[in-house]
């Protein structure tokens, strides 16, 4: 046996192993490690919804304070996706209570993908662009073209189109999803 800095050991584990370790030993250091990995993401999400740094700060602390009990209660397959939902729920609960006027954000569609899907299959996507692009809604067409063909950043797309960040993001994501559906349709039609 040897003594190892707990942080170094926990750092070497992946999220799911880390959670397993927490469930078995309930080490507070596991939560610290999760904070280190995702604190900045949670804060960003909460800032997006609350729009106030003070509120985002308090809610981030609240989120990581709740985490131990939640981890023990739930079986989590993919921690990052799960934490995204937890952070959003905390934000929505806060908005409902404090800023009921902002609740329209709650209708936003959650489109979190599983871990394996996060890597982009851009080449396949580009191949479909030529014939499928005109079939998309105009806003999606514009955003997809600017992002994938003209290689512009979100900031540049916002400047050119005057869409909001959220609109650009949704148009790219939904456009990409629709392109995939069109591709699948085409393939099934061709195979008949």
């Amino acid at each position, binding site marked *: 046996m040897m003594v190892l800095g707990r942080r170094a050991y926990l750092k070497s584990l992946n999220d799911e192993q880390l959670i397993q370790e927490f469930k078995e030993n309930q080490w507070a250091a596991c939560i*610290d490690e999760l904070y280190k990995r995702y604190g900045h993401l949670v*804060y960003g999400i909460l800032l997006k919804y609350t729009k106030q740094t003070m509120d985002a700060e308090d809610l981030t602390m609240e989120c990581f304070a709740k985490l131990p009990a939640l981890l023990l209660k739930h079986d989590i397959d993919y921690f990052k996706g799960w934490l995204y939902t937890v952070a959003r729920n905390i934000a929505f609960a806060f908005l409902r209570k404090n800023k009921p006027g902002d609740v329209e954000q709650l209708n936003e569609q959650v489109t979190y993908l599983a871990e394996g899907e996060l890597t982009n299959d851009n080449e396949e996507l580009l191949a479909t662009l030529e014939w499928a692009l005109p079939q998309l809604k105009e806003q999606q067409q514009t955003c997809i073209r600017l992002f994938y063909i003209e290689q512009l950043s979100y900031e540049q797309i916002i400047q050119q189109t005057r869409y909001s960040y959220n609109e650009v993001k949704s148009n790219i994501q939904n456009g990409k999803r629709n392109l995939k559906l069109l591709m699948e349709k085409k393939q099934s039609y061709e195979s008949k």
Partner: protein
Amino acid sequence: MKANRALFKKYLNTKSQEEKHLIEKQFVSDDFTMDAFEGYLQHKDAWQTFEALDQKYNRKQKKKKLAFYGSALAVSLLLGWYLIPAMPMKQTTSAAKHKAESIQIKIHREDDIQQMKTAALSERITPTEVRLNFSPSNEAPATKAEVLERMQQMPTQTVEIRQQKPQVLQVKMGRELLIKNFKVLDYRYYRKGDLTQTFAENEHGEQQLKIPYINILNKAIEHFARQDYKLALLLFDEILLTYPDDANALFYGAMCLYNLSEYNQAESRFVKLQNVPFGNFSEEANWYLLHVYQKAKKEAAFSSLQKMIIGQKGFYAEKAENLSFN
């Protein structure tokens, strides 16, 4: 690419739209990251406020830890008498260990390692090469005995042989095992009861815990095999903090440093390996030290070590002969 803090900082601070686009392209389907980016972009000083939150979080955790350590310290004081006999004493008296301790190697902290840069692919020695290039295991007693016997029969007037004989006879080989097909010295036979049991804070204010040596080594080798040299080095250095003359951590840690282009530090570890109680890695250490000298452009050291390896006529003699300085 991971959506870690460094990447966020880069994304939020870069002026290059091209760089921004590349990052966005990586995370276009990752709502968590993209939403978080959006949050930060809404406020100019968002990242600074997050860093302030970081400090607040750390302060809060530290307070909690202090309360825990207060009670743990009392417990460990009460149990102190029990722990003293378990301290390993015998091995530390060996001359080799004293010598090994005199060679200073740098133990890295996480931040030091983060700043290192992995060498270009052509400059690295991959884990597969290391694995395939091991000299034959020491666990072939018949061959060893034969070598020693033959050497004793050689004419004593040959100066070269007289110099080599004591060297070979002094080397102590430990039992070995394979982790992911990588040779390691099995310290489980040599460190019985070698356990420090404490709950105290270390110098960095971190909580410490007991973990079997073999588990850490296993994890470290796993990272090494995956070419994740930074993470592997972090764990090998943790081992060296407890066991400064650990041949496994010295050898594989040196290989990590080599692949991270930290040639001077790799050199000190390979040199130290020649002076630890077990010689299981000494041949390999010399062979890779030769590569270090080549990369660090130390011509004199390179040619003298090359001559030595060739002269020893061991497993790496032929390879050393074929390795040129340029």
